[in-house]
Structure formats: C-alpha cells, structure tokens
C-alpha cells in the first residue's frame, strides 16, 4: 500500500529531510509492504488549508501542519506561545514527543475532534527576529512595525512586548522590508535565508522566545484503520526521528546561518538571560489570551506542557 505524505515545504527543506527519513524507516520496517510517497509544497496545491482539507478528507492521510493549522485545530496555536518551551531545542523536541504530552488526552482530543491524530512534533528551529534597529530590551522594540502573520495570538504577543505588529502577505514581504513599510520580521533562520529577507534587514536577534514547530498529523479514520503492527511501526519511527529530526534541523539552520553571515551585512545579536527575562515577563499574560481564545482543551494541553518543561528543566533553564 502507498501512504501519501503532504509537506508544507518544498524539496530540500527541514520537513522534506524529516519526511525522507520517515519514508526510509517505514519502508524498511514494513519490508516493502508500505511505500511512502512524498508530496512537497505545490504538489497538493499552494494554500496550506487545502493540504489540511486533504488530510481531513483522507486523500492525503499524513502531513505536516504548522503555524497555519490554528484555523483547523485552534489548540495547535500552543506551539506559537512565547517563552513556554525550554530554551534548549533538543529538550523541546523530546518533551513535545514524550508520551506525557503527545499522548495526553487534551492534545489527542483537540485533534481527534477535527478528524485528525497528532503523531509527532518537529521543531524546525528558533523563530528569529530581524529588524532595522538593534533590539535587546522591550524599550528597543517599542512601536517597531514588526511583520506577523494575521493571527490574533501572535498579534497579542507582540503587542504585549510593546511592538506594533503589522500584517503583510508573504509574497510582498521582501519589498515591504526593503521599502521600509515594515521594520522587522519573525521567521525561522532558513526562511530568512530562502526568501532573502536578511538582505534588507540590519539586525538578526535570537531571543529564543519560541521555536517553529511542525505537527505531524494523520487522518483519524485512516489511522484507526491501520493494523496494530502498523501503528506500532509509526510510533517507533517517530520516536527514532526525535533525535534525527533535531540533527536535520540544526544542521540545516546552521548552514543557512552561515550563508547569511557570508553573503549578508547583518549583525547577529543573542539576548542575555537578563534581557530574555524582561520579554518573558511581558509574554506571560498572553497565555491567558490563548486559554480564552481556544478553551479548556487548550488550557489542559498548556498545563501539561508546562509541567513537563518544569520537571525536565527544574523550572530554571527555560
């Protein structure tokens, strides 16, 4: 049988690297009974919601859902809350993929209510700020016209920091940054490089406030229809892929960062713990906004996640 696997990203991306490993492992474990067919961005369409439609209807049984999944599974916006995940990226990958979180009733139910099953989470690197001015403290970000996706939670987050979030379509973003319609931008490192955004920005700021997380999801009916062995096989595979996925994303983002340093004329800033602390305090009330927006399951998932982070890091290293 053939499992179709829809990616939000093009060939040669982090998602594609992960999916290739997924394909290799599944085809190995199933002794060739299962063939995984990868469908990168463009192969299923060009608007993410059509991918989610295809997963929900089962025509593509497996796929990734990241920042845009919020309209389909509101609770998934948990992944874009700031200062919730640990600072360490591998730690984050482990916690998100732990049974305690991934198998928790709240997280499972949130997806199952929409005909989906969450299988795994793939952190794709920090969400990094760029700006045309130096940013170290909340005073620096005051009134910065920073581009965010048109999404109520992100808007609330950056308003909490004191910035003026502005919405600009992805396709228009480069010109907007170049012409100064927007002063700043938030993307994972690879996107800054891919779209050339770094060419038209002066500073790149690692605040490690959040990571770009892609959720690996499956169609519920399809998943329930799999044999127990096959479900077990998926579970083993996603477990193995926690470390592999982390390696893929770190290598990928490091290479892209090198390119940015080589080609671009951009100053890279890493915030100190004290500086991060100031932003963390401002971000905390936004957790309540999230709970108000998405309701009980979201609150439970948030609490589960916070507990896991607490016990893993002793509450210090966030």
């Amino acid at each position, binding site marked *: 049988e053939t499992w179709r696997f829809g990616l939000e990203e093009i060939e040669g991306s982090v998602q594609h690297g992960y999916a290739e490993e997924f394909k290799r492992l599944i085809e190995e474990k199933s002794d060739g009974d299962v063939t995984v067919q990868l469908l990168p961005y463009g192969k299923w369409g060009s608007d993410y919601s059509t991918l989610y439609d295809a997963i929900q209807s089962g025509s593509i049984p497996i796929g990734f859902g990241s920042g845009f999944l919020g*309209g389909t599974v509101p609770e998934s916006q948990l992944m874009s809350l700031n200062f919730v995940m640990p600072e360490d990226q591998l730690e984050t990958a482990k916690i998100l993929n732990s049974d305690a979180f991934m198998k928790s009733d709240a997280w499972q139910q949130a997806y199952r209510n*929409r005909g989906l099953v969450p299988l795994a989470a793939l952190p794709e690197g920090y969400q990094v700020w760029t700006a045309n001015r130096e940013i170290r403290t909340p005073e620096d970000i005051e009134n910065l016209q920073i581009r965010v*996706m048109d999404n109520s939670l992100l808007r609330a987050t950056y308003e909490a920091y004191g910035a003026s979030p502005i*919405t600009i379509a992805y396709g228009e973003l480069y010109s907007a940054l170049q012409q100064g319609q927007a002063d700043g931008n938030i993307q994972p490192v690879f996107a800054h490089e891919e779209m050339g955004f770094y060419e038209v920005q002066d500073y790149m700021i690692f605040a490690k406030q959040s990571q770009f997380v892609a959720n690996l999801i499956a169609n519920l009916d399809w998943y329930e229809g799999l044999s127990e062995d096959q479900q077990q096989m998926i579970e083993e595979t996603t477990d193995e892929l926690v470390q592999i996925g982390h390696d893929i994303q770190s290598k990928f983002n490091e290479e892209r960062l090198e390119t940015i340093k080589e080609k671009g004329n951009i100053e890279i800033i890493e915030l100190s713990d004290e500086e991060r602390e100031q932003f963390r305090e401002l971000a905390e009330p936004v957790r309540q906004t999230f709970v108000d927006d998405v309701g009980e399951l979201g609150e439970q998932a948030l609490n589960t996640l916070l507990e896991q982070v607490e016990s893993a890091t002793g509450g210090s290293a966030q």
Partner: protein
Amino acid sequence: MSQQQLSEDKKTPGRDNGFIRALGGLNLVLGAIEKWIIIICVLAMALLMSGHVVGNLLFQQGIPGTYEVTEMFIVVITFVGVGYAARHSRHISMTAIYDQLSGRLRKALLIVLCLGTAALMFYFAYKSVDYVVTLQERGRTSAALGIPMWMVYLALPIGFTLAGIQYLLTTARNLVSQDIYRSFTEKEEYDELPEEDPDLSHTDDDNRRDA
C-alpha cells in the same frame, strides 16, 4: 453597461405566457439579491483595504483581519458573481463556430450549451454543499477573527445554484419564444459600429462628448 439591456424584454413577441412571467418574477428577486451582495462586497472591500492603509500610515496600526476578510470578500464576489454573470450572459466563451450558425441550428446549440452548463453548475453546487457541511462539522475558523469559514463558503453553493437556475431559465425562454436569448432577459445582438449609427448610445458616450 449591461443593465440597459434589460429593457429589451419589452420587444419579446406575444408568445410569452404566465409560466415565463412567473419565472420572471422569481428571477427579478434573485437578481436583486445577487446584485446587492456584489455591490456591498466590492464597496466594503475597497473601504476596508483603504482603511487598513490609512490606519497603517497614520496610527501605525492597520485593521486586524483585513487580509482574511478581504479574501472572504473575493470568494463571495467570485462565486455569487458567477450567477450574476450568467444572468447577463457575460461568461467568457469562444463563439467563433456559434457565430457562424443561424436560425434553428444556432438555437439548438445554445440550448445544448445552457443545459450542459446548468448540469455542471448544479454538480458543483452539490459538491460545495458537501464541503460546507464538512467544514461546519469540523469547525474551521479564520486565524485573525475566528469567523466560521463555512458561513463564508456558503457563497459557493448559492452562486452555483443561482448560475444553474439562470442557465435553465435561459433554456426555458428559448424554448417558448421565437428569438434567440443569450440569457433569460437579454436578446442576442451586438452593438452597431458607432460611425454607422451615432444615436445608438453606449454608456461611455457621455465621456466621449466631454472631450
């Protein structure tokens, strides 16, 4: 530019019957609904987008949700407009062969075209009802304002159904009257060349005289 064509109705020969008149009544109501949805959406879209720009420029603060609401307006204009464009026989088609035919043959082809298109429109209406119901069950909402998407996408079944009805009405009109009708209310004809008949006024003529 198309509204003036509505007056052609009067020239219809006396074979019109009560059936056609009843359909005409229904048609008027549907037309008015389509018309107002389109007008309101276009004006609201212009207002929203320019308001967003002004807000960004003056207050560093655009209108939240402008992007997604604008996209919703486009969806509604497009699909409700499918019905309205069918009403005024504006849908783009390649008429080179059709133009060469005349009389009964031409009318027969037109009826085939209308019935075929109506069938497709109703099929899409049926498929989009499915889609809307599914989205309603899954509770998909928009990202910025949390608007339930199924309500917006109702424009598809509505627009496709209205377009299907238009093509059926056109068929009915052509079956009962002698002339050829491109749509339920519009008889088929091209404008004369302006030089041949300067009095046959066209909407743009007013501007022309001003020069």
